[in-house]
């Protein structure tokens, strides 16, 4: 029905979008895998990171691809402090309280952004925003190709941290057996905070990759995070490869349903998949049945 000339670029664009979802989802799944909580503040943190990247460009003239090296450590520190000094102590170790505290933080951040910057939508103007690369069969926007590549760099970096460093080993130990890790002398509160920091740093990287050809407003993060939730559930909560594959899949589904059904219905498609996966396979396509 549709010629491959339209279909193939749609699929490739879906994969590129999926890569950004993957990066947002990576942070979410990492936090879930270790702390066993869903971080409802993830979207608000993404909005905040995008504003930070926006002002780094406007006020300091920093290109988002340069600002990422400042913002990632900065947001690591923010994430670390949030978990260590607010979420941890405030929730008294009760899962339901953690949910509510992250929700409260989300509400605060999102509305602080709204209060400070109003609901205006902003964009930055970089020379390469509309540059494209000719792949022979299709043209692809440079920022999206960069984003696609960066996701695999970040995923690899995370894998290296988790596999070869002491911190990574401690994180995996805590994820597997919290009490045992604690008995072995691992500072669980510290490991939780580091994990939360890493997840938040992922968000900062996504923000810098998104900014060159995306807009910023106080609610922008939510659009991505609802998709990221879907991705994380689809890929199996806590599974990093699951998140990558799930994200690429969702990106393609969204792109194709947008093509066939139109924008707003494409959005409904995501939620229907989300609810269906939650109801039918809450452990995801790749997760083991608990």
């Amino acid at each position, binding site marked *: 029905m549709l010629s491959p000339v339209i279909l193939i670029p749609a699929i490739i664009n879906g994969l590129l979008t999926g890569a950004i979802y993957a990066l947002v989802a990576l942070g979410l799944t990492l936090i879930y895998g270790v702390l066993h909580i869903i971080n409802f503040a993830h979207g608000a943190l993404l909005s905040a990171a995008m504003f930070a990247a926006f002002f780094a460009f406007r006020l300091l003239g920093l290109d988002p691809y340069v600002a990422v090296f400042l913002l990632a450590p900065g947001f690591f520190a923010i994430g670390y402090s949030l978990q260590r000094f607010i979420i941890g102590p405030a929730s008294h170790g009760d899962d339901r309280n953690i949910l*509510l505290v992250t929700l409260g933080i989300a*509400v605060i951040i999102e509305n602080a952004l709204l209060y400070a910057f109003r609901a205006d939508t902003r964009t930055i103007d970089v020379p390469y925003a509309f540059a494209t690369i000719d792949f022979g069969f299709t043209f692809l926007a440079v920022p999206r190709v960069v984003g696609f590549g960066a996701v695999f760099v970040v995923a690899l970096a995370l894998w290296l941290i988790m596999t070869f460093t002491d911190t990574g080993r401690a994180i995996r130990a805590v994820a597997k057996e919290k009490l045992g890790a604690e008995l072995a002398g691992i500072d669980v509160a510290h490991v939780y905070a580091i994990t939360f920091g890493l997840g938040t740093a992922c968000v900062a990287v996504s923000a810098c990759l998104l900014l060159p050809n995306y807009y910023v407003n106080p609610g922008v993060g939510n659009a991505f995070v609802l998709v990221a939730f879907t991705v994380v559930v689809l890929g199996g909560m806590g599974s990093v490869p699951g998140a990558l594959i799930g994200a690429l899949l969702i990106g393609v589904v969204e792109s194709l349903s947008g093509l066939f059904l139109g924008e707003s219905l494409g959005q409904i498609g995501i939620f229907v998949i989300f609810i269906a996966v939650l109801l039918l396979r809450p452990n995801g396509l790749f997760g083991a049945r608990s």
Partner: protein
Amino acid sequence: MKALVPIAAVIGVLALVPLVVHSTATLNFLVVALMIALAGQGWNILGGYGGQYSFGHAAFFGTGAYVTAILQVRYGVNAWLGFGAGIAAGAGLGAIIGGLTFRSGLRGSYFALVTLAFAELLRIIASVAPITGAGVGTLIKLDLGARAFQFQSRAVFYWVILALVAASLVTTRLVECSRFGVWLTAVRENEDAAQSLGVDAQRVKSTAMIVSGAMTAAAGCLYAQYFLFVDSGIAYGTWISIEALLTPIIGGVGTVFGPLIGALVVKSLGEVAKLVAGDAPGLDLIIYGAVLVAVIWLSPRGLIGGFAQARQWFRRFVVPTVTSSQETGRA
């Protein structure tokens, strides 16, 4: 019956307010606060007593609001019948969502996520479907008169909504005293243990969700009837999901009066913020978020729990110095 005395007393006092206060702004404030208290009481049945934290109670609020509005505007149904239908629709939606999610065994974070997704799904559908007026929303025709459930005087509306709040308080109290309520709290405390003792957890939770959905939908119906306007951002917006869970948690989760106290406190804080900093977008929600975190941090059982704790502390450390002989004898 004795259990209902405090409710009668509180409602009695609140009922006198319009006789003393004539300011439209104050009555307006109280009407909205009571509406939120009603929505919060719905959340409290499921979340407070049943331990199932929903992040998407907007689904019920919005459904109640839209059903009332659409039946009146598009089908010429009487407003009171529309009101009843809105509540029934909320209960029905509760049965559907509850049936689906609890049958799949979703708990904790998963339950919060799926309720959030249902609310968002409904919001997107309402923002594009022609029957809801899509992006424009639905406007209920002004037709002042008791027959159309519209009142010239705010005081009358206040009493109507107060009556519904009273009904919700009594319902909650009855749930609390009933066998069903005990099952529900047992499920909250330890679902597996409750089940091993023969409690049909899935059915108990689904029933709680039906009652919960009906109550929150009633608040939505009243909203539509009071403001005579509904759109997708109001009806299914995140704000109502947040306020519905905020009020019981701040007042005292799993208590009869928690949502009412929480709603009055939360709404007052919002008003004070407006007075201090002007009507800026987002400000009230920043405060709500901060209060939510602070209450969980400092007093996880809300203001009622905090008050009880303070009284206990007072008894233990302050009173003994006065009447030490009796206390030490017992200790």
